[in-house]
């Protein structure tokens, strides 16, 4: 399928792509007969269709970011939720008039009680904070073997959650933070476009962010940095011999992945206007990893499909919602045993795995 698409003339490929993007923007209004059963509100008590699409878009963003770390650089990060939480808390702490941080600034500089840092300025704050935390976590730990790294990052995710819960004076502890702003400021009846009720604009915003990031990450993948990541993933020692500084590029992957995670958390918190520490538990982190590996780690289309599937299916098929974690676990085990390259594999990754299987020693 992939090869057939690549074999088409360029104008047909671009036309197909444009049609697909238009379709993505049209999705929340979906009303084509026959396709209506896809909508999550076509079942009794189903959830808001645009809301589900928004969640899918945020998860796709997460998957793209985590794919840089897991799929391209081959570093298993089980604490991705930590960066997601940092992004979410950045907009909450600096943008909401209810946050202790903003209130302290108001108090210090005699500002009115409605003052807060505007949403647009919170974006770079979130990106930078997530990036810095990625470097801070990566610096000491990226010298370790892959499986140590997994456990350390898992611990990091837990630390972030526990800190968010326990630092009452900064994060409001378990009560969480409300009135998180969107593009039009804190949620209120005056919000014309980005309100709490109509989710469609939020979906279009998230979709736009996804498309921009897809282009960005694609450029990165085909750059010198991206090729270094693949070299490191395949064989770190060989890459080092060839003059690829492993640690430096691994740190880059970690930091870029962290920034993307921060951005997704940022969007998530803006849309819901309220966050508390319970939303950032380790299970969600494992869901993120599941999206990447089930979809096809290393391949952006694959991980996006994985993210959409794992976010959409439990919403559309409510019968399985109670067992969703069981299904995620089963999916992870089955895919790894039967199809380790994922549902939609990266061509190169699939080849690597085949090579390894051929090299298998008789008795191991």
């Amino acid at each position, binding site marked *: 399928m992939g090869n057939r698409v690549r074999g088409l003339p360029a104008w047909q490929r671009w036309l197909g792509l444009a049609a697909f993007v238009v379709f993505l923007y049209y999705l929340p209004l979906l009303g084509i007969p026959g396709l209506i059963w896809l909508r999550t509100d076509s079942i009794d008590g189903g959830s808001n269709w645009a809301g589900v699409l928004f969640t899918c878009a945020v998860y796709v963003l997460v998957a793209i970011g985590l794919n840089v770390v*897991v799929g391209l650089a*081959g570093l*298993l990060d*089980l604490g991705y939720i930590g960066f997601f939480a940092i992004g979410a808390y950045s907009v909450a702490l600096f943008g909401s008039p209810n946050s202790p941080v903003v209130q302290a600034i108001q108090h210090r500089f005699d500002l009115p009680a409605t003052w807060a840092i505007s949403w647009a300025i919170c974006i770079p704050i979130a990106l930078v904070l997530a990036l810095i935390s990625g470097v801070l976590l990566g610096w*000491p*730990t990226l*010298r*370790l*073997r*892959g*499986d*140590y790294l*997994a*456990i*350390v990052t*898992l*611990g*990091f995710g*837990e*630390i972030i959650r*526990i*800190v968010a*819960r*326990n630092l009452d004076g900064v994060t409001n502890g378990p009560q969480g933070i409300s009135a998180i702003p969107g593009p039009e400021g804190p949620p209120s009846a005056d919000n014309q476009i980005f309100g709490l009720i109509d989710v469609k604009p939020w979906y279009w915003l998230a979709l736009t962010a996804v498309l921009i990031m897809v282009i960005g990450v694609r450029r990165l993948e085909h750059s010198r940095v991206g090729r270094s990541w693949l070299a490191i993933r395949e064989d770190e020692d060989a890459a080092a011999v060839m003059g690829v500084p492993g640690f430096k590029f691994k740190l880059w992957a970690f930091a870029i992945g962290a920034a993307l995670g921060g951005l997704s958390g940022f969007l998530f918190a803006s849309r819901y206007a309220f966050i508390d520490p319970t939303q950032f538990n*380790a*299970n969600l982190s*494992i869901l993120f*990893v*599941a999206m990447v*590996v089930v979809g096809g780690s290393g391949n952006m289309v694959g991980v996006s499909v994985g993210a959409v599937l794992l976010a959409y299916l439990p919403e559309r098929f409510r019968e399985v919602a*109670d*067992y969703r*974690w*069981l299904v*995620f*676990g*089963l*999916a*992870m*085990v089955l895919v*790894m*045993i039967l199809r*380790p390259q994922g549902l939609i594999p990266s061509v190169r990754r699939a080849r690597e*795995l085949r090579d*390894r*299987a051929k*090299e*298998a*020693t008789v*008795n*191991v």
Partner: protein
Amino acid sequence: MNFHDLIGHLGQHTVDGLSKGAIYALIALGYTLVYGVLRLINFAHSEVFMVGTFAVLGVWTALGAKNNPPLGVAVLLLVVGLLAAAAASGGVALAIERIAYRPLRRRNAPPLIFLITAIGLSLILIEVFGQLLPDVAGGFLPTLFGRPRQIVGMPTIIGQHGVITIGNTVITNVQLIVVVSAVAMMAALDWFINHTRYGRGVRAVAQNPETAALMGVNQDRVIMLIFVLGGIMAGAAALLWSMRFGFTQNSVGFVLGLKAFTAAVLGGIGNLRGALLGGLLLGVVEVYGATLFQSRWEDVVAFVVLIVVLMFRPTGLLGESLGRARA
């Protein structure tokens, strides 16, 4: 910062820490054995422990255990609980190896894939015990699987009371049993690995799998053996946990497993004696940390210890040595 409390009750905190660390150490053995032989972190080991606690709960409920039974009954309950937990945990560990790891080993999969499979299995076990069993068996076994994902209490088999008092330090009977039996279990395992034929096989495979295979060691059997041994130790830890804390939950393994892993890394993963040292040390450090700061920061202490150890001494205090042990 509460230095006053820490210094004033140093002995008591040390005793509390040791009795906590003994349980970490027993679980850590499972990580260490598997890592020593396969160079692989068995992420699902924390759920092996969790299954053990449910086995103890199941047996005690089935036998109609009440709080504070007479001594003879108590001993019987503990022995039966130990057997049930060891059987359940050992069985689950073996099943994990057969279902998930063996097919991957045959295909020479990269370590990342082992880890992801293990995470998936861990999720499955947590969900089966948290959601599926209560849903399916809730009607038949109401006391055992009450409500999904809830904490389930267990009967107190041995009432906790102080038996030894030194200054202002009180050591309770349960603490004493926990530490003594954990150390005894570990000594037995250490002897088994260092002085029996099977132990020699384990060490040989750890040292060099290919050569061991050439010398006629059945590698598959050795790998099964280490999973079962690790499972039995986790089962013993499950019994001690049930005695000391008296509850369980489907997610009980998650944080405990992370701490046991930290203990294994702290002592030197792949090193049996390291697991004991690391476990006891981590337990003590954690209690000190919880006293110094507040108890709600307790879990952070363990994770920070893990990161610091890996930064400065990635091979742990005693270094990796299952493979390099005296032949």
